[in-house]
């Protein structure tokens, strides 16, 4: 299942890690240079192909993954085979915070991505020398639990405009480019499912938000906020 094991970056060096965009958000930030070099020999960025599952629902997972690039959707399967989108992961997000014999959901790459994989056994070892790692993990909270809270708050919103707008804003907050345009890496159907809306309602709501001036442009997967209206 783990595409991440096959990778082109196995020989990557510490300088590659030093350039990592999410280093400050990752546990690597706790390590000294020597250790980073050691780590980089085996740990560095692993590519994940679009559509591939990083961890699979119901299967064992013993590693922490940190998203370096790309995005993932978290999917749970209902008993009749239908899928429930329970969240999305973006750059800097953590996955597999605790080792488990049966993962709670599947994480599928929505686009080609990069992740770092840290076996929990290694993290335990490292934490002895660098207590900061555990603190960092704790501080990240249970990303998965946090995702659940995020989702329940979204689903609790009583108008479609509110649900869609807070979702789009959460994507914009992840946007390091710091501009008002976001690209949806997930399909509209995924967004509708995640927000508990019918596809038609989502489309209608996007149109309403544009008409209302909250959004400047909605064109396929590209959405531009109206800078003045949103501040």
């Amino acid at each position, binding site marked *: 299942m783990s595409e991440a094991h096959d990778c082109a970056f196995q020989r990557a060096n510490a300088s590659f890690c030093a350039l990592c965009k999410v280093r400050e958000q990752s546990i690597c930030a706790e390590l000294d240079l020597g250790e980073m070099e050691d780590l980089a020999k085996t740990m560095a960025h692993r590519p994940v192909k679009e559509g591939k599952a990083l961890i699979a629902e119901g299967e064992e997972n013993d590693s922490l993954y940190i998203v370096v690039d790309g995005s993932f959707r978290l999917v749970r399967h209902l008993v*009749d085979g*239908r899928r429930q989108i329970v969240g999305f992961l973006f750059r800097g997000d953590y996955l597999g915070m605790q080792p488990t014999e049966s993962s709670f959901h599947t994480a599928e790459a929505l686009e080609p991505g990069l992740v770092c994989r840290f076996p929990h056994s290694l993290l335990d070892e490292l934490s002895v020398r660098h207590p900061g790692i555990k603190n960092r993990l704790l501080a990240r909270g249970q990303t998965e639990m946090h995702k659940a809270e995020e989702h*329940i*708050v979204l689903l*609790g919103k009583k108008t479609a405009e509110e649900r869609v707008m807070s979702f789009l804003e959460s994507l914009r907050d992840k946007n390091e480019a710091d501009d008002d345009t976001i690209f949806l890496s997930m399909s509209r159907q995924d967004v509708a*499912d995640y927000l*508990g809306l019918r596809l038609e309602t989502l489309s209608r709501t996007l149109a309403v938000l544009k008409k209302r001036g909250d959004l400047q442009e909605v064109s396929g997967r590209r959405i531009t906020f109206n800078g003045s209206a949103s501040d």
Partner: protein
Amino acid sequence: MNPKWLKYLDVNAPRYTSFPSALFFDERVGADVYESALSRVSMYEPLSLYIHIPFCRQLCWYCGCNMVVENQYERAVRYVDLLIREIEMVADTLGGCGEVVSIHLGGGTPNYLNIEDLGRIFDSIELNLGLTDKANIAIEIDPRLCETGLIKMLTKIGINRLSIGVQDFDSSVQEAINREQPYELVEACVTEMRENAQADISFDLLYGLPRQSTEGFVDTLEKAVSLSPDRISLFGYAHLPSKLKHQRVIDETQLPGKLPRYQLAEMAGRYLVDEGYVCVGFDHFAKPSNSLAVAVHAGTLKRNFQGFTDDIANATIGLGVSSVSLVRGVYAQNIKRSDEYASRVSKGKLPTAKGWIKTMEDEFWAKVISDLLCYGKTDLHEHAHISGGSLSDLMAVSRKRIISLEKDGLAEWRDGIVIIPDQAKHFSRVVAAAFDPYINRGNFSLSQAV
């Protein structure tokens, strides 16, 4: 038929669309208990919604549902306002938990409501509880109120299962039950459904109605099958004139006797199976490719308030007058009278009137009964752990309960496995009732089991 079975044709038994039967619900369950059950629903827990629309344009004399003939449409608009209020209250208690996987609109006549009001209900569900394109949405349709264009609009708002109350195509039977709807009307309705790519159309047929004869009912079955519905429910008419005053209009001398009544059911079941339908439970029939037939083979068939279902949800939320909810082992039935329902809901209170909290032992008997109705078979070994009691005690009790049925060939006992022989499946409710520990409590008007 086995002559020993004759005496069972007089037996009355609950329909076991719930266990215990709603007849035994009491006031110990009120809004507070129901609310606390709702608050235990977890995230993404599949939820099934049942919405009761109690209005009809005209009274059918056989009707046993909670309904009212309504001439002032404004009342229906106000009722929809209340439904929406109830949906909001339920949503507040759920706090974002649960996922709606199926909706069933029953009645009364759901298509008494105009498309705007139906749309308002769905919009409210979507905004308060969440509604996605994956949900199965079913509606019961009175073909007499199915104006051209209605099906197209229903399809557009997401309805993907349609159930038509056919009952019988014979005009003299239709006259005797005050429900005149020529075959052509139903045909036009089905044609429009197919034109809108509806792929799950169900017919309700009733046996045991006045003036029904074997020949006449064969004709009804032929006509029904010619329209190729995806499912057919074949219910026995429940004649309870002491409880339902309007049924007194029905001339009892025209009702088929108990043996002809049984023969109608038996013949109809065989006819539909010969036509390629899969028998689901004992009174539902579905095309082999239909999800209900698939559920039979997958072992996922369930019994719920609509009869047999392939619904994946264990939790049902009932909305509107007299609707029954089942959430986390708690049954909660709403107030039946619409004025009382209105006054409770408009005060912002959940309109629960009564219900039942299932004990572990109830869960055990519920499973046994559901197995018997769905599959004609139950294995006590499989379910004993649910009850918290000892297997040998449960076996002894069960054996004792069916000993006379066994003698008469309605059930077989094979060391803890109870089997209803295929030929006896019309007596499933009789066998199920033998396991019902509440059945002898008090004097209830139960309907004829066969």
